Protein backbone atom coordinates (compact mmCIF):
# COMPACT_ATOMS: atom_id res chain seq x y z
CA UNK A 1 0.00 0.00 0.00
CA UNK A 2 2.78 2.46 0.91
CA UNK A 3 4.71 2.01 -2.30
CA UNK A 4 1.47 2.14 -4.29
CA UNK A 5 0.33 5.26 -2.48
CA UNK A 6 3.70 6.79 -3.30
CA UNK A 7 3.31 6.24 -7.02
CA UNK A 8 -0.26 7.54 -6.80
CA UNK A 9 0.93 10.71 -5.09
CA UNK A 10 3.78 11.13 -7.55
CA UNK A 11 1.49 10.93 -10.56
CA UNK A 12 -0.78 13.45 -8.83
CA UNK A 13 2.18 15.81 -8.42
CA UNK A 14 3.35 15.22 -11.98
CA UNK A 15 -0.12 16.14 -13.15
CA UNK A 16 0.26 19.61 -11.58
CA UNK A 17 3.95 20.34 -12.00
CA UNK A 18 3.81 24.11 -11.60
CA UNK A 19 1.94 24.03 -8.31
CA UNK A 20 4.15 21.23 -7.03
CA UNK A 21 7.36 23.10 -7.85
CA UNK A 22 6.10 26.36 -6.38
CA UNK A 23 5.37 24.60 -3.12
CA UNK A 24 8.77 22.93 -3.24
CA UNK A 25 10.33 26.35 -3.84
CA UNK A 26 8.81 27.69 -0.62
CA UNK A 27 10.57 24.95 1.31
CA UNK A 28 13.79 25.33 -0.69
CA UNK A 29 14.10 28.97 0.29
CA UNK A 30 13.55 28.23 3.98
CA UNK A 31 15.97 25.33 4.11
CA UNK A 32 18.60 27.09 1.99
CA UNK A 33 18.48 30.08 4.35
CA UNK A 34 18.92 27.83 7.36
CA UNK A 35 21.69 25.70 5.88
CA UNK A 36 23.73 28.55 4.42
CA UNK A 37 23.51 30.61 7.61
CA UNK A 38 24.51 27.71 9.82
CA UNK A 39 27.29 26.60 7.46
CA UNK A 40 28.73 30.12 7.39
CA UNK A 41 28.50 30.55 11.14
CA UNK A 42 30.26 27.21 11.59
CA UNK A 43 32.96 28.37 9.20
CA UNK A 44 33.25 31.59 11.19
CA UNK A 45 33.69 29.61 14.38
CA UNK A 46 36.47 27.55 12.83
CA UNK A 47 38.14 30.67 11.48
CA UNK A 48 38.12 32.31 14.89
CA UNK A 49 39.38 29.11 16.48
CA UNK A 50 42.27 29.10 14.01
CA UNK A 51 43.05 32.72 14.82
CA UNK A 52 43.33 31.90 18.49
CA UNK A 53 45.47 28.91 17.83
CA UNK A 54 47.94 31.27 16.20
CA UNK A 55 47.60 33.82 18.99
CA UNK A 56 48.54 31.19 21.57
CA UNK A 57 47.47 30.92 25.18
CA UNK A 58 50.66 32.19 26.72
CA UNK A 59 50.24 35.76 25.55
CA UNK A 60 48.63 38.88 26.83
CA UNK A 61 47.95 41.98 24.81
CA UNK A 62 47.62 45.46 26.25
CA UNK A 63 46.15 48.25 24.14
CA UNK A 64 44.44 51.59 24.54
CA UNK A 65 40.76 51.29 25.27
CA UNK A 66 38.15 52.49 22.83
CA UNK A 67 36.37 51.81 19.62
CA UNK A 68 38.54 52.98 16.79
CA UNK A 69 40.75 51.49 14.10
CA UNK A 70 43.99 50.10 15.53
CA UNK A 71 46.76 52.63 15.67
CA UNK A 72 44.58 55.69 16.00
CA UNK A 73 44.18 55.37 19.76
CA UNK A 74 46.85 56.82 22.07
CA UNK A 75 47.44 56.44 25.74
CA UNK A 76 50.16 53.88 26.22
CA UNK A 77 53.79 54.94 26.08
CA UNK A 78 57.25 53.45 26.07
CA UNK A 79 57.40 54.01 29.84
CA UNK A 80 54.48 51.60 30.25
CA UNK A 81 56.40 49.07 28.19
CA UNK A 82 59.43 49.41 30.46
CA UNK A 83 57.26 48.99 33.52
CA UNK A 84 55.64 45.83 32.12
CA UNK A 85 58.94 44.44 30.88
CA UNK A 86 60.23 44.59 34.42
CA UNK A 87 57.37 42.49 35.82
CA UNK A 88 58.43 39.02 36.96
CA UNK A 89 55.45 37.29 35.32
CA UNK A 90 56.63 37.98 31.80
CA UNK A 91 59.55 36.98 29.66
CA UNK A 92 59.31 40.13 27.60
CA UNK A 93 57.10 42.98 26.49
CA UNK A 94 57.14 43.95 22.83
CA UNK A 95 55.64 47.30 21.82
CA UNK A 96 54.13 47.99 18.42
CA UNK A 97 53.30 51.27 16.81
CA UNK A 98 50.59 51.24 14.18
CA UNK A 99 49.47 53.96 11.84
CA UNK A 100 48.88 55.09 8.32
CA UNK A 101 51.71 56.47 6.27
CA UNK A 102 52.27 57.76 2.76
CA UNK A 103 53.98 55.15 0.62
CA UNK A 104 55.68 55.49 -2.72
CA UNK A 105 56.61 52.61 -4.99
CA UNK A 106 58.09 53.11 -8.45
CA UNK A 107 56.77 56.65 -8.57
CA UNK A 108 53.24 55.68 -7.54
CA UNK A 109 51.91 57.14 -4.29
CA UNK A 110 49.49 55.41 -1.96
CA UNK A 111 48.51 55.16 1.70
CA UNK A 112 49.15 52.08 3.80
CA UNK A 113 49.09 50.63 7.30
CA UNK A 114 52.51 50.41 8.79
CA UNK A 115 53.46 48.49 11.89
CA UNK A 116 56.65 49.35 13.68
CA UNK A 117 58.26 46.89 16.04
CA UNK A 118 61.60 46.78 17.81
CA UNK A 119 64.13 44.92 15.68
CA UNK A 120 65.72 43.33 18.73
CA UNK A 121 62.60 41.16 19.07
CA UNK A 122 62.75 39.75 15.57
CA UNK A 123 63.55 36.26 16.86
CA UNK A 124 60.47 36.23 19.09
CA UNK A 125 58.41 37.49 16.20
CA UNK A 126 59.20 34.33 14.29
CA UNK A 127 59.27 31.79 17.11
CA UNK A 128 56.44 32.95 19.33
CA UNK A 129 53.98 34.56 16.96
CA UNK A 130 54.36 32.13 14.12
CA UNK A 131 54.82 34.77 11.47
CA UNK A 132 55.94 32.88 8.41
CA UNK A 133 57.74 34.36 5.50
CA UNK A 134 56.40 33.29 2.11
CA UNK A 135 59.07 34.84 -0.05
CA UNK A 136 62.37 36.56 0.61
CA UNK A 137 63.48 36.75 4.21
CA UNK A 138 62.30 37.95 7.58
CA UNK A 139 64.01 40.47 9.79
CA UNK A 140 66.60 37.84 10.72
CA UNK A 141 69.78 39.71 9.87
CA UNK A 142 68.12 42.74 8.47
CA UNK A 143 69.51 46.17 8.44
CA UNK A 144 67.50 48.97 9.92
CA UNK A 145 66.07 50.05 6.59
CA UNK A 146 64.19 46.82 5.83
CA UNK A 147 60.42 46.24 5.38
CA UNK A 148 58.46 43.02 5.30
CA UNK A 149 55.12 43.16 3.51
CA UNK A 150 51.78 41.55 4.25
CA UNK A 151 50.51 39.36 1.45
CA UNK A 152 47.72 41.71 0.35
CA UNK A 153 49.80 44.82 0.87
CA UNK A 154 52.32 43.43 -1.60
CA UNK A 155 49.66 42.55 -4.16
CA UNK A 156 47.06 45.26 -3.88
CA UNK A 157 48.53 48.55 -2.72
CA UNK A 158 50.07 49.53 -6.01
CA UNK A 159 49.30 49.04 -9.67
CA UNK A 160 52.06 46.46 -9.94
CA UNK A 161 52.88 43.91 -7.29
CA UNK A 162 55.73 44.96 -5.04
CA UNK A 163 58.82 42.86 -5.54
CA UNK A 164 61.54 41.77 -3.16
CA UNK A 165 64.72 43.75 -3.66
CA UNK A 166 62.88 46.89 -4.72
CA UNK A 167 62.75 50.09 -2.75
CA UNK A 168 59.68 51.43 -0.98
CA UNK A 169 59.48 55.00 0.23
CA UNK A 170 57.73 55.31 3.59
CA UNK A 171 56.99 58.92 4.50
CA UNK A 172 59.85 59.86 2.23
CA UNK A 173 62.40 57.51 3.71
CA UNK A 174 63.86 54.94 1.39
CA UNK A 175 63.48 51.35 2.61
CA UNK A 176 64.39 47.99 1.19
CA UNK A 177 61.77 45.27 0.63
CA UNK A 178 63.26 42.03 1.98
CA UNK A 179 60.30 39.67 2.32
CA UNK A 180 56.58 38.96 2.02
CA UNK A 181 54.62 37.20 4.76
CA UNK A 182 52.32 34.19 4.38
CA UNK A 183 48.66 35.26 4.32
CA UNK A 184 47.03 35.39 7.75
CA UNK A 185 43.54 35.15 6.29
CA UNK A 186 42.28 38.48 7.57
CA UNK A 187 42.74 41.76 5.75
CA UNK A 188 43.83 43.73 8.82
CA UNK A 189 47.02 41.69 9.13
CA UNK A 190 47.47 40.98 5.45
CA UNK A 191 47.46 44.65 4.48
CA UNK A 192 50.06 45.62 7.06
CA UNK A 193 53.65 46.58 6.37
CA UNK A 194 56.16 45.69 9.07
CA UNK A 195 59.18 47.88 9.58
CA UNK A 196 61.67 48.83 12.31
CA UNK A 197 60.27 50.86 15.22
CA UNK A 198 62.48 53.91 14.69
CA UNK A 199 61.35 54.15 11.07
CA UNK A 200 57.73 53.97 12.19
CA UNK A 201 58.30 56.63 14.87
CA UNK A 202 59.83 58.93 12.32
CA UNK A 203 57.13 58.24 9.70
CA UNK A 204 54.29 58.71 12.16
CA UNK A 205 55.96 61.51 14.11
CA UNK A 206 55.37 59.74 17.39
CA UNK A 207 58.28 59.55 19.85
CA UNK A 208 56.64 57.91 22.85
CA UNK A 209 53.33 56.34 21.86
CA UNK A 210 52.58 52.64 21.72
CA UNK A 211 49.56 51.08 19.98
CA UNK A 212 49.91 47.60 21.30
CA UNK A 213 52.02 45.72 23.82
CA UNK A 214 52.59 42.03 23.42
CA UNK A 215 53.53 40.18 26.61
CA UNK A 216 54.79 36.64 26.86
CA UNK A 217 53.90 34.82 30.07
CA UNK A 218 56.61 32.89 31.87
CA UNK A 219 56.02 29.16 32.17
CA UNK A 220 53.56 28.32 34.93
CA UNK A 221 52.01 31.78 35.11
CA UNK A 222 48.33 31.85 34.35
CA UNK A 223 46.99 34.48 32.01
CA UNK A 224 44.64 35.67 34.77
CA UNK A 225 47.58 36.24 37.11
CA UNK A 226 49.45 37.99 34.31
CA UNK A 227 46.51 40.24 33.55
CA UNK A 228 46.18 41.16 37.21
CA UNK A 229 49.84 42.01 37.43
CA UNK A 230 49.54 44.26 34.38
CA UNK A 231 46.58 46.00 35.93
CA UNK A 232 48.49 46.64 39.16
CA UNK A 233 51.52 47.96 37.33
CA UNK A 234 49.54 50.38 35.20
CA UNK A 235 47.06 51.51 37.86
CA UNK A 236 49.24 54.35 39.15
CA UNK A 237 50.00 55.92 35.78
CA UNK A 238 46.61 55.20 34.22
CA UNK A 239 44.03 55.79 36.94
CA UNK A 240 41.29 56.31 34.37
CA UNK A 241 41.89 52.84 32.95
CA UNK A 242 42.30 54.10 29.42
CA UNK A 243 43.80 50.78 28.40
CA UNK A 244 42.59 47.23 28.15
CA UNK A 245 44.21 43.91 28.87
CA UNK A 246 43.32 41.04 26.59
CA UNK A 247 44.14 37.43 27.23
CA UNK A 248 43.52 34.64 24.77
CA UNK A 249 40.79 33.26 27.02
CA UNK A 250 39.10 36.62 27.29
CA UNK A 251 39.26 37.20 23.58
CA UNK A 252 37.88 33.78 22.87
CA UNK A 253 35.12 34.33 25.40
CA UNK A 254 34.24 37.66 23.82
CA UNK A 255 34.14 36.16 20.38
CA UNK A 256 32.19 33.17 21.53
CA UNK A 257 29.54 35.27 23.20
CA UNK A 258 29.33 37.37 20.05
CA UNK A 259 29.07 34.21 18.00
CA UNK A 260 26.42 32.95 20.42
CA UNK A 261 24.34 36.02 19.69
CA UNK A 262 24.89 35.57 15.96
CA UNK A 263 23.87 31.95 16.18
CA UNK A 264 20.79 32.76 18.25
CA UNK A 265 19.75 35.21 15.54
CA UNK A 266 20.43 32.54 12.93
CA UNK A 267 18.31 30.02 14.79
CA UNK A 268 15.58 32.64 14.92
CA UNK A 269 15.80 33.31 11.19
CA UNK A 270 15.96 29.59 10.58
CA UNK A 271 12.82 29.07 12.62
CA UNK A 272 10.98 31.82 10.80
CA UNK A 273 12.05 30.48 7.38
CA UNK A 274 10.87 27.02 8.29
CA UNK A 275 7.57 28.32 9.57
CA UNK A 276 7.15 30.26 6.33
CA UNK A 277 7.95 27.12 4.35
CA UNK A 278 5.53 25.18 6.53
CA UNK A 279 2.78 27.72 6.00
CA UNK A 280 3.48 27.43 2.27
CA UNK A 281 3.03 23.68 2.44
CA UNK A 282 -0.08 24.00 4.56
CA UNK A 283 -1.56 26.52 2.17
CA UNK A 284 -0.72 24.35 -0.82
CA UNK A 285 -2.18 21.29 0.86
CA UNK A 286 -5.39 23.05 1.85
CA UNK A 287 -5.68 24.31 -1.71
CA UNK A 288 -5.01 20.78 -2.94
CA UNK A 289 -7.78 19.43 -0.72
CA UNK A 290 -10.19 22.08 -2.00
CA UNK A 291 -9.03 21.58 -5.57
CA UNK A 292 -9.30 17.85 -5.41
CA UNK A 293 -12.41 17.55 -3.30
CA UNK A 294 -14.10 15.79 -6.16
CA UNK A 295 -11.15 13.45 -6.62
CA UNK A 296 -11.27 12.65 -2.94
CA UNK A 297 -14.98 11.89 -3.35
CA UNK A 298 -14.17 9.58 -6.25
CA UNK A 299 -11.50 7.79 -4.27
CA UNK A 300 -13.91 7.33 -1.40
CA UNK A 301 -16.54 6.04 -3.81
CA UNK A 302 -14.13 3.39 -5.05
CA UNK A 303 -13.25 2.28 -1.55
CA UNK A 304 -10.61 4.58 -0.05
CA UNK A 305 -10.83 4.66 3.75
CA UNK A 306 -10.33 7.94 5.62
CA UNK A 307 -6.98 6.55 6.67
CA UNK A 308 -5.86 5.95 3.09
CA UNK A 309 -6.87 9.47 2.10
CA UNK A 310 -5.01 10.94 5.06
CA UNK A 311 -1.93 8.92 4.19
CA UNK A 312 -2.05 10.11 0.59
CA UNK A 313 -2.15 13.76 1.58
CA UNK A 314 0.45 13.40 4.31
CA UNK A 315 2.68 11.63 1.86
CA UNK A 316 2.25 14.39 -0.67
CA UNK A 317 3.24 16.98 1.93
CA UNK A 318 6.22 14.89 2.98
CA UNK A 319 7.41 14.39 -0.60
CA UNK A 320 7.13 18.09 -1.38
CA UNK A 321 9.00 18.86 1.84
CA UNK A 322 11.68 16.25 1.20
CA UNK A 323 12.27 17.55 -2.31
CA UNK A 324 12.40 21.07 -0.91
CA UNK A 325 14.75 19.93 1.84
CA UNK A 326 17.10 18.19 -0.55
CA UNK A 327 17.25 21.06 -3.02
CA UNK A 328 17.39 23.54 -0.15
CA UNK A 329 20.41 21.83 1.38
CA UNK A 330 22.14 21.90 -2.00
CA UNK A 331 21.32 25.53 -2.60
CA UNK A 332 22.22 26.40 0.99
CA UNK A 333 25.71 24.96 0.65
CA UNK A 334 26.00 26.66 -2.72
CA UNK A 335 25.23 30.00 -1.09
CA UNK A 336 27.64 29.25 1.75
CA UNK A 337 30.41 28.47 -0.74
CA UNK A 338 29.61 31.68 -2.59
CA UNK A 339 29.92 33.62 0.68
CA UNK A 340 33.22 31.84 1.27
CA UNK A 341 34.45 32.85 -2.17
CA UNK A 342 33.38 36.45 -1.60
CA UNK A 343 35.08 36.44 1.81
CA UNK A 344 38.25 35.01 0.30
CA UNK A 345 38.20 37.65 -2.43
CA UNK A 346 37.99 40.35 0.24
CA UNK A 347 40.86 38.89 2.24
CA UNK A 348 39.09 36.63 4.74
CA UNK A 349 40.66 33.46 3.43
CA UNK A 350 40.32 31.95 6.90
CA UNK A 351 36.57 31.48 6.43
CA UNK A 352 35.98 27.97 5.12
CA UNK A 353 32.61 26.25 5.15
CA UNK A 354 32.41 22.48 5.19
CA UNK A 355 29.54 20.25 4.14
CA UNK A 356 28.84 18.65 7.49
CA UNK A 357 26.64 15.53 7.39
CA UNK A 358 24.63 16.55 10.43
CA UNK A 359 23.67 19.78 8.71
CA UNK A 360 22.42 17.86 5.67
CA UNK A 361 20.35 15.60 7.91
CA UNK A 362 19.14 18.58 9.93
CA UNK A 363 18.04 20.47 6.81
CA UNK A 364 16.14 17.57 5.27
CA UNK A 365 14.83 16.35 8.61
CA UNK A 366 13.41 19.73 9.57
CA UNK A 367 11.85 20.10 6.13
CA UNK A 368 10.15 16.71 6.46
CA UNK A 369 8.98 17.50 9.97
CA UNK A 370 7.57 20.82 8.79
CA UNK A 371 5.93 19.08 5.85
CA UNK A 372 4.26 16.41 7.95
CA UNK A 373 3.14 18.90 10.61
CA UNK A 374 1.78 21.30 8.00
CA UNK A 375 0.19 18.48 6.03
CA UNK A 376 -1.55 16.98 9.05
CA UNK A 377 -4.46 19.40 9.23
CA UNK A 378 -5.28 19.41 5.50
CA UNK A 379 -4.94 15.62 5.45
CA UNK A 380 -7.42 15.32 8.30
CA UNK A 381 -9.79 17.64 6.53
CA UNK A 382 -9.54 15.55 3.36
CA UNK A 383 -10.08 12.32 5.29
CA UNK A 384 -13.16 13.70 7.01
CA UNK A 385 -14.92 14.84 3.81
CA UNK A 386 -18.35 13.33 3.28
CA UNK A 387 -18.28 11.23 0.09
CA UNK A 388 -21.49 12.62 -1.46
CA UNK A 389 -20.59 16.20 -0.73
CA UNK A 390 -17.09 15.67 -2.07
CA UNK A 391 -18.48 14.17 -5.27
CA UNK A 392 -20.80 17.11 -5.74
CA UNK A 393 -17.88 19.59 -5.68
Amino acid sequence: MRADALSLVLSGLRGRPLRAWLTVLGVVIGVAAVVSLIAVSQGLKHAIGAQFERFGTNRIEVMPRGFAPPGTLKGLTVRDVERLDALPEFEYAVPYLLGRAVLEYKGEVSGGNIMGFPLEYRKQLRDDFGIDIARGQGFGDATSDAVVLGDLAAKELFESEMRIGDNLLVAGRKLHIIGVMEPFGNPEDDYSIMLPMDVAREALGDEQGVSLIDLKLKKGVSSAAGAESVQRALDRTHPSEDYQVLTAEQLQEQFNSLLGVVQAIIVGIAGISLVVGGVGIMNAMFTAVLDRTREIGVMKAVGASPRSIAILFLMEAAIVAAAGGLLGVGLGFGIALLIQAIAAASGFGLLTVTMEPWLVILGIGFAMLTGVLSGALPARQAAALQPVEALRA
Partner: protein
Amino acid sequence: MPPVIELRDVWKTYRMSGVEVHALRGLSLTVEQGEFLSLRGPSGSGKSTAMHLIGCLDLPSRGKVLLKGKDIAQLPESSLARIRGKTIGFVFQQFNLIPTLSALDNVCLPMLFQGVSREKREQRGRSLLERMSLSDRLRHLPAELSGGQLQRVAIARALANDPEVILADEPTGNLDSATGKSVLELIGNLHREDGKTIILVTHDQEIARYAKREEYILDGRLR
Protein backbone atom coordinates in the same frame (compact mmCIF):
# COMPACT_ATOMS: atom_id res chain seq x y z
CA MET B 1 -30.60 -15.35 2.05
CA PRO B 2 -31.55 -11.68 2.55
CA PRO B 3 -31.99 -9.51 -0.57
CA VAL B 4 -28.86 -7.79 -1.81
CA ILE B 5 -30.41 -4.37 -1.40
CA GLU B 6 -33.35 -3.40 0.74
CA LEU B 7 -34.64 0.12 1.40
CA ARG B 8 -37.30 0.37 4.09
CA ASP B 9 -39.29 3.57 4.25
CA VAL B 10 -36.20 5.68 3.59
CA TRP B 11 -36.33 9.45 4.02
CA LYS B 12 -33.58 11.82 3.13
CA THR B 13 -34.00 15.40 4.23
CA TYR B 14 -31.67 18.28 3.45
CA ARG B 15 -31.86 21.46 5.45
CA MET B 16 -30.92 24.44 3.31
CA SER B 17 -30.89 27.81 5.10
CA GLY B 18 -33.73 26.77 7.37
CA VAL B 19 -35.84 25.21 4.62
CA GLU B 20 -36.26 21.44 4.66
CA VAL B 21 -36.00 19.65 1.34
CA HIS B 22 -37.16 16.04 1.28
CA ALA B 23 -35.18 14.30 -1.44
CA LEU B 24 -36.69 10.94 -0.47
CA ARG B 25 -40.08 10.52 1.19
CA GLY B 26 -40.48 6.97 2.34
CA LEU B 27 -38.76 5.10 -0.47
CA SER B 28 -39.02 1.33 -0.16
CA LEU B 29 -37.27 -0.96 -2.63
CA THR B 30 -36.00 -4.52 -2.60
CA VAL B 31 -33.47 -5.79 -5.12
CA GLU B 32 -32.57 -9.47 -5.30
CA GLN B 33 -29.28 -10.98 -6.30
CA GLY B 34 -28.72 -10.86 -10.06
CA GLU B 35 -31.56 -8.46 -10.87
CA PHE B 36 -31.21 -5.81 -13.59
CA LEU B 37 -33.37 -2.92 -12.52
CA SER B 38 -33.92 0.51 -13.95
CA LEU B 39 -34.94 3.40 -11.78
CA ARG B 40 -36.62 6.06 -13.84
CA GLY B 41 -37.97 9.43 -12.80
CA PRO B 42 -37.96 13.12 -13.64
CA SER B 43 -35.20 15.47 -12.60
CA GLY B 44 -35.21 16.07 -8.86
CA SER B 45 -37.25 12.96 -8.08
CA GLY B 46 -34.50 11.57 -5.85
CA LYS B 47 -32.81 9.00 -8.10
CA SER B 48 -29.26 10.06 -7.36
CA THR B 49 -30.01 10.40 -3.68
CA ALA B 50 -31.23 6.81 -3.61
CA MET B 51 -28.12 5.62 -5.47
CA HIS B 52 -25.86 7.40 -2.98
CA LEU B 53 -27.57 5.66 -0.07
CA ILE B 54 -27.35 2.24 -1.71
CA GLY B 55 -23.71 2.94 -2.54
CA CYS B 56 -22.94 3.83 1.11
CA LEU B 57 -21.89 7.32 0.05
CA ASP B 58 -24.51 8.80 2.37
CA LEU B 59 -26.76 7.74 5.22
CA PRO B 60 -30.58 8.03 5.40
CA SER B 61 -32.30 10.60 7.61
CA ARG B 62 -34.94 8.05 8.51
CA GLY B 63 -35.69 4.45 7.61
CA LYS B 64 -33.21 1.69 6.91
CA VAL B 65 -30.85 0.84 4.09
CA LEU B 66 -29.88 -2.84 4.27
CA LEU B 67 -27.12 -4.38 2.18
CA LYS B 68 -27.25 -8.17 2.34
CA GLY B 69 -29.30 -7.75 5.49
CA LYS B 70 -26.90 -5.31 7.20
CA ASP B 71 -28.05 -1.86 8.25
CA ILE B 72 -25.46 0.51 6.81
CA ALA B 73 -26.24 3.14 9.47
CA GLN B 74 -24.80 0.76 12.07
CA LEU B 75 -21.48 0.27 10.30
CA PRO B 76 -18.31 2.26 11.00
CA GLU B 77 -16.81 4.40 8.21
CA SER B 78 -14.04 1.86 7.61
CA SER B 79 -16.62 -0.88 6.88
CA LEU B 80 -18.55 1.45 4.62
CA ALA B 81 -15.32 2.20 2.74
CA ARG B 82 -14.74 -1.53 2.32
CA ILE B 83 -18.30 -2.07 1.02
CA ARG B 84 -17.88 0.81 -1.44
CA GLY B 85 -14.64 -0.77 -2.58
CA LYS B 86 -15.60 -4.44 -2.80
CA THR B 87 -19.38 -4.83 -3.07
CA ILE B 88 -20.41 -1.80 -5.10
CA GLY B 89 -19.22 -0.58 -8.46
CA PHE B 90 -20.24 2.96 -9.37
CA VAL B 91 -20.66 4.33 -12.89
CA PHE B 92 -21.34 8.08 -12.92
CA GLN B 93 -22.81 10.38 -15.50
CA GLN B 94 -19.66 12.58 -15.32
CA PHE B 95 -17.33 9.56 -15.52
CA ASN B 96 -15.41 10.81 -12.45
CA LEU B 97 -12.00 9.54 -13.49
CA ILE B 98 -8.89 10.91 -11.79
CA PRO B 99 -7.44 13.33 -14.37
CA THR B 100 -3.80 12.77 -13.42
CA LEU B 101 -3.98 8.98 -13.69
CA SER B 102 -3.81 6.91 -16.88
CA ALA B 103 -6.77 4.77 -17.95
CA LEU B 104 -5.06 1.70 -16.52
CA ASP B 105 -4.22 3.39 -13.20
CA ASN B 106 -7.80 4.61 -12.90
CA VAL B 107 -9.05 1.07 -13.36
CA CYS B 108 -6.53 -0.24 -10.84
CA LEU B 109 -7.37 2.37 -8.20
CA PRO B 110 -10.17 0.43 -6.43
CA MET B 111 -7.86 -2.60 -6.19
CA LEU B 112 -5.08 -0.46 -4.73
CA PHE B 113 -7.32 0.53 -1.83
CA GLN B 114 -8.10 -3.14 -1.22
CA GLY B 115 -4.41 -3.94 -0.97
CA VAL B 116 -4.17 -6.01 -4.17
CA SER B 117 -0.58 -6.39 -5.34
CA ARG B 118 0.61 -4.25 -8.21
CA GLU B 119 1.18 -7.24 -10.45
CA LYS B 120 -2.34 -8.61 -9.95
CA ARG B 121 -3.86 -5.17 -10.31
CA GLU B 122 -2.20 -4.47 -13.62
CA GLN B 123 -3.05 -7.90 -14.93
CA ARG B 124 -6.72 -7.49 -14.06
CA GLY B 125 -6.79 -3.86 -15.17
CA ARG B 126 -5.43 -4.83 -18.59
CA SER B 127 -7.91 -7.63 -19.08
CA LEU B 128 -10.82 -5.39 -18.04
CA LEU B 129 -9.76 -2.67 -20.45
CA GLU B 130 -9.30 -5.30 -23.11
CA ARG B 131 -12.87 -6.39 -22.51
CA MET B 132 -13.90 -2.74 -22.99
CA SER B 133 -11.90 -2.74 -26.28
CA LEU B 134 -9.43 -0.21 -24.86
CA SER B 135 -6.22 -2.26 -24.99
CA ASP B 136 -4.60 0.45 -27.05
CA ARG B 137 -5.49 3.22 -24.57
CA LEU B 138 -3.92 1.89 -21.36
CA ARG B 139 -1.49 4.78 -20.87
CA HIS B 140 -3.81 7.55 -22.03
CA LEU B 141 -4.89 10.23 -19.60
CA PRO B 142 -8.64 10.94 -19.31
CA ALA B 143 -8.16 14.24 -21.17
CA GLU B 144 -6.93 12.22 -24.16
CA LEU B 145 -10.04 10.02 -24.40
CA SER B 146 -13.50 10.48 -25.91
CA GLY B 147 -16.70 10.40 -23.85
CA GLY B 148 -17.53 6.83 -24.83
CA GLN B 149 -14.00 5.71 -24.05
CA LEU B 150 -14.12 7.50 -20.70
CA GLN B 151 -17.31 5.75 -19.73
CA ARG B 152 -15.85 2.38 -20.77
CA VAL B 153 -12.84 3.06 -18.56
CA ALA B 154 -15.28 3.92 -15.76
CA ILE B 155 -17.16 0.63 -16.29
CA ALA B 156 -13.87 -1.28 -16.19
CA ARG B 157 -13.07 0.54 -12.94
CA ALA B 158 -16.49 -0.38 -11.52
CA LEU B 159 -15.66 -4.03 -12.20
CA ALA B 160 -12.17 -3.87 -10.72
CA ASN B 161 -12.92 -5.63 -7.44
CA ASP B 162 -15.57 -7.85 -9.02
CA PRO B 163 -18.43 -6.28 -7.01
CA GLU B 164 -21.85 -7.88 -6.71
CA VAL B 165 -23.69 -4.63 -7.41
CA ILE B 166 -23.23 -2.12 -10.22
CA LEU B 167 -24.86 1.28 -9.72
CA ALA B 168 -25.05 3.30 -12.93
CA ASP B 169 -26.41 6.84 -12.50
CA GLU B 170 -27.32 8.24 -15.94
CA PRO B 171 -24.29 6.50 -17.52
CA THR B 172 -25.25 7.73 -20.97
CA GLY B 173 -26.23 11.24 -19.93
CA ASN B 174 -23.09 12.79 -21.42
CA LEU B 175 -22.90 10.59 -24.52
CA ASP B 176 -24.48 10.79 -27.98
CA SER B 177 -27.15 8.18 -28.63
CA ALA B 178 -24.99 5.74 -30.62
CA THR B 179 -22.20 5.78 -28.06
CA GLY B 180 -24.77 5.62 -25.27
CA LYS B 181 -26.26 2.55 -26.84
CA SER B 182 -22.95 0.70 -26.91
CA VAL B 183 -22.36 1.60 -23.27
CA LEU B 184 -25.80 0.25 -22.40
CA GLU B 185 -24.94 -2.97 -24.27
CA LEU B 186 -21.83 -3.33 -22.12
CA ILE B 187 -23.86 -2.81 -18.95
CA GLY B 188 -26.42 -5.34 -20.18
CA ASN B 189 -23.59 -7.84 -20.69
CA LEU B 190 -22.55 -7.43 -17.08
CA HIS B 191 -25.97 -8.67 -16.16
CA ARG B 192 -26.23 -11.48 -18.72
CA GLU B 193 -22.66 -12.75 -18.69
CA ASP B 194 -21.46 -11.87 -15.19
CA GLY B 195 -24.73 -12.14 -13.31
CA LYS B 196 -24.21 -8.78 -11.63
CA THR B 197 -26.98 -7.04 -9.75
CA ILE B 198 -27.47 -3.78 -11.62
CA ILE B 199 -29.41 -0.61 -10.97
CA LEU B 200 -29.57 1.71 -13.94
CA VAL B 201 -30.77 5.23 -13.22
CA THR B 202 -32.26 7.25 -16.05
CA HIS B 203 -34.98 9.72 -16.90
CA ASP B 204 -35.37 8.17 -20.36
CA GLN B 205 -38.07 5.58 -20.94
CA GLU B 206 -36.21 3.96 -23.83
CA ILE B 207 -33.08 3.47 -21.80
CA ALA B 208 -35.08 2.13 -18.88
CA ARG B 209 -36.30 -0.66 -21.16
CA TYR B 210 -32.81 -2.16 -21.30
CA ALA B 211 -33.43 -3.45 -17.79
CA LYS B 212 -35.37 -6.57 -16.84
CA ARG B 213 -37.32 -4.76 -14.15
CA GLU B 214 -38.46 -1.16 -14.33
CA GLU B 215 -39.33 1.05 -11.41
CA TYR B 216 -40.59 4.62 -11.52
CA ILE B 217 -39.73 7.16 -8.85
CA LEU B 218 -41.57 10.42 -8.26
CA ASP B 219 -41.19 12.89 -5.40
CA GLY B 220 -38.92 10.60 -3.47
CA ARG B 221 -40.86 7.34 -3.54
CA LEU B 222 -41.77 4.58 -5.99
CA ARG B 223 -44.94 4.89 -7.99
